[in-house]
C-alpha cells in the first residue's frame, strides 16, 4: 500500500481516520492523542469553561430527504457542543461555492440554516465565502465552528464510562446514512426513510438534570453506533455489551441494509446520541428522553460489563455473541 496517498477511507470516521489523526494531524498540530479526543475541546478562560468545535460538510447530494447540507452543518456543530454538556452560543459559517452553482439552491440552504440555528438557539455571528472554479469543488462545501459554555458541575467525558453503566440511545439507528445513500444512488427501494438530522441540545439539557449520573454523551455520526461505542470503550478502558434485539431500527433501514449488505451499527446518524448513565438512574434518564420529541423511541441498548482494554461485543438477536470493531475502510462515502 502506498503510504503517501490520502484515500477516501481516511475520511470515513473509522479506523483510517483515527490513524491519520494519530499519526499525522494531531502530533503535528497539538500533541494530544486521539483516544483522548472528544467531540469538542473544552477550554478554560478566567474560570469559565468553554466548548469549542469545528466541522466541515461535504455531503453528496446536498439535498436529501429530511434535510440538506445546511441543516446538517448547523445541527452537527450544535451537537458536537451539546455532547460536551455545553450550551451552544455562537457559530461561524464558511461557504465554499463551486462556480455555476444555483443561486436559488444556495438561498434555500441558507434559509434552512437560519431556521435550524434559530431552533437550536445558536447565533450565527461570523462567516466567510469563497468561490472556486467549476470542477474544483462539488457545488457547495460548508465549514461551521461553534462555541458554547459548560456550566459548573457538568463533567461529560468519553473516559467516564464505568462498569454497570447503561447505554441509552434516543431513537432508531442508521436513518441518515440510508436516506443519503438512497438519495445519492437514486435507489428506488420503496422506503420513506428520512435523515434524522436534528439539534440535540434541547434533549441534552433535559439529560443534564440527571447531574453526575450522566457520564458520557456522544453522537454516533460517521462510523455509526459501533465505531462511537468502540471509541468510548477505548477511552474509558471498559467492555461494552450491546443487545442486538434492543437496537431501535426502522424496517425500511433494515430492509435497505439487508439488500446492500450493510450493518446498521456502522451507518451514520445525525440526530442521535448515546448516553452512558449510572445504573440506578438509567430508567429515569430513559423516561426523560422518551418525554422529549427527539427521544420517543429511546431505548437501553446495552451496558458496560467489564474493565478491559476497550472492547465492544454484541449479543446477537439469535442469542450468539460476537465482537464489534470500528468501521474499517469506507462504508459509505461522503455522508456528512
Amino acid at each position, binding site marked *: *500500500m*502506498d503510504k503517501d*496517498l*490520502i*484515500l*477516501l*477511507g481516511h475520511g470515513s470516521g*473509522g*479506523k*483510517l481516520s483515527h*490513524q491519520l489523526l494519530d499519526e499525522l494531524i494531531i502530533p503535528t498540530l497539538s500533541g494530544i492523542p486521539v483516544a483522548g479526543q472528544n467531540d469538542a475541546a473544552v477550554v478554560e478562560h478566567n474560570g469559565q469553561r468553554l466548548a469549542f468545535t469545528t466541522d466541515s460538510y461535504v455531503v453528496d447530494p446536498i439535498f436529501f430527504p429530511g434535510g440538506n447540507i445546511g441543516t446538517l452543518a448547523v445541527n452537527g456543530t450544535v451537537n458536537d457542543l451539546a455532547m460536551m454538556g455545553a450550551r451552544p452560543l455562537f457559530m461561524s459559517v464558511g461557504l465554499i461555492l463551486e462556480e455555476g452553482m444555483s443561486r436559488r439552491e444556495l438561498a434555500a440552504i441558507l434559509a434552512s440554516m437560519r431556521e435550524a440555528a434559530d431552533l437550536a438557539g445558536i447565533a450565527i455571528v461570523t462567516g466567510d465565502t469563497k468561490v472556486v472554479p467549476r470542477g474544483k469543488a462539488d457545488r457547495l462545501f460548508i465549514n461551521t465552528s461553534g462555541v458554547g459554555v459548560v456550566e459548573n458541575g457538568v463533567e461529560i467525558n468519553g473516559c467516564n464510562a464505568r462498569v454497570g453503566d447503561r447505554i441509552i440511545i434516543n431513537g432508531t439507528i442508521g436513518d441518515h446514512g440510508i436516506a443519503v445513500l438512497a438519495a445519492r*444512488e437514486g*435507489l428506488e427501494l420503496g422506503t420513506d426513510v428520512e435523515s434524522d438530522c436534528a439539534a440535540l441540545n434541547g434533549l441534552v439539557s433535559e439529560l443534564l438534570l440527571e447531574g453526575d449520573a450522566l457520564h458520557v454523551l456522544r453522537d454516533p455520526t460517521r462510523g455509526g453506533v459501533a465505531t462511537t461505542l468502540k471509541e468510548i470503550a477505548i477511552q474509558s478502558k471498559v467492555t461494552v455489551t450491546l443487545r442486538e*434485539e434492543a437496537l431501535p431500527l426502522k*424496517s425500511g433501514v*433494515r*430492509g435497505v441494509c*439487508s439488500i*446492500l*449488505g450493510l*450493518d446498521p451499527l456502522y451507518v451514520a446518524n445525525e440526530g442521535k446520541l448515546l448516553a452512558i448513565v449510572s445504573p440506578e438512574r438509567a430508567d429515569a434518564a430513559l423516561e426523560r428522553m422518551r418525554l422529549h420529541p427527539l427521544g420517543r423511541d429511546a431505548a437501553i441498548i446495552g451496558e458496560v460489563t467489564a474493565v478491559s482494554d476497550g472492547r465492544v461485543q*454484541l*449479543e*446477537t*438477536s*439469535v*442469542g*450468539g*455473541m*460476537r*465482537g*464489534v*470493531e470500528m468501521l*474499517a*475502510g469506507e462504508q459509505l462515502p461522503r455522508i456528512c
Partner: protein
Amino acid sequence: MNYLDEFRDRQVVLGFAERIRGLVAGRTTPMTFMEICGTHTMAIYQYGIRSLLPAEVRLISGPGCPVCVTPNGYVDRAIALARLPGTVIATFGDMVRVPGSSTSLMEERARGADIRIVYSPLDAVALAAKNPQLRVVFLGVGFETTAPAIAGSILAAEQRGLANYFVLTAHKTIPVPMQILAADPELSIDGYLCPAHVSAIIGANAYRPLAEEQGVPCVVTGFEPTDVMQGVEMLVRQVLAGESRVENQYRRVVTAEGNVRAQAVLAQVFTPCDVEWRGIGVIPGSGLRIAEPYARYDAECAIPVAVEELREHRGCLCGEILKGKVSPFACPLFATTCTPEAPVGACMVSSEGTCAAAYKYGR
C-alpha cells in the same frame, strides 16, 4: 409477517441448537461441515452461530467469496485498463480495495483513475450510453448468481448498439471446486452447506454428483440464522444415518432444476473455460468466458493493454484459508500487517471474505 423476523427468531434458533447438541452428544470425533458461500460465512460470524454449536460440530469456510478468489493477475489487468485515457472502470464496491501485484483500484482512483462503484451491471451500461466518448469496462466478477445479470448487460448493450461497453470477466462456477475440496484427504469434509442464491440459478440437482458419487451429504441452505441452524441439523442427521443425499432446506427460493431462463442466458453469452482461483490454482472448466459471438464486449480481447509483471504476496495464507485448511487466526499476517484498511490478501477485503468476517466479528 415481514420475512425477516421469522427467520431470525431466537427461540427457533435455540431450539435447533438444543436438538443438534442432543444429536451429537457423546461423539468423540467432530463433524466438519464446509459452508461454500461468503454470505454464509458472514451470516455465521454476524449472528455468532459458532458460539451456539457444540464442539462436536465444526464449521469451516470455503472459497465462495468471488472477490477473494479473484487472482492478482485479474486485478493487475483491471488496473492497467484503468490507467488508459478515456476509460472508466465500473465495478461492485468490494473490488476497489483488492490488492494487485503492486497497487489497488482504490489507490489508482486516488491517483486520478476514473473508477465508479455501481450496484448493477445495467448501471454500467447506462453509463456507457450516456458517455459515448468514454470506454466503460465493467468488472465481471462473481459466481452463477451474478453472471446472468452480467450476461444480461451484454445483451442490453447489444440491443442498444453500444460500442463502448466492455466486460472484463473472472466468472467462476461453484460445483467443480466443491468436488475437488471434497476429495482432499487433508480436509475430510463431512458435509456441505451448499450456497443459497447460486443454487437458485443452478438448482439443487447440480450437487447430485457430489452426494451420489463422492458420498458427501449436501444441504442447500438459506442465509438467515434459522436457515443455517436447520441446514446444520439436516447435515448432522445425514451423517448419523450414514447417508449422502442432496437435501434442500431453502425450498422457498431454490428448486431442483434452478432458474432455467438464467441458465439459458448464461449458455448464450458465456462459454466454460479453465480459470485461476486465488490460492487454489487453475481449475479446469470452472470459469465462464464471453462466447465468440459476443467477443467484441470482452475487454481482455478487445482492449489490448500491457499488464505489469505478476507478483504474489509473501506469507499470505489466503490459499490455505480459502480451502478451509487453516483458520484466519493461524495466518501470521492476520490483524497484524493484514487488516481491512491495508489488506494483503483478498480474503481480508471483501465484506464476505473469511478473514474480514473473522476480523470484524470473530476477535
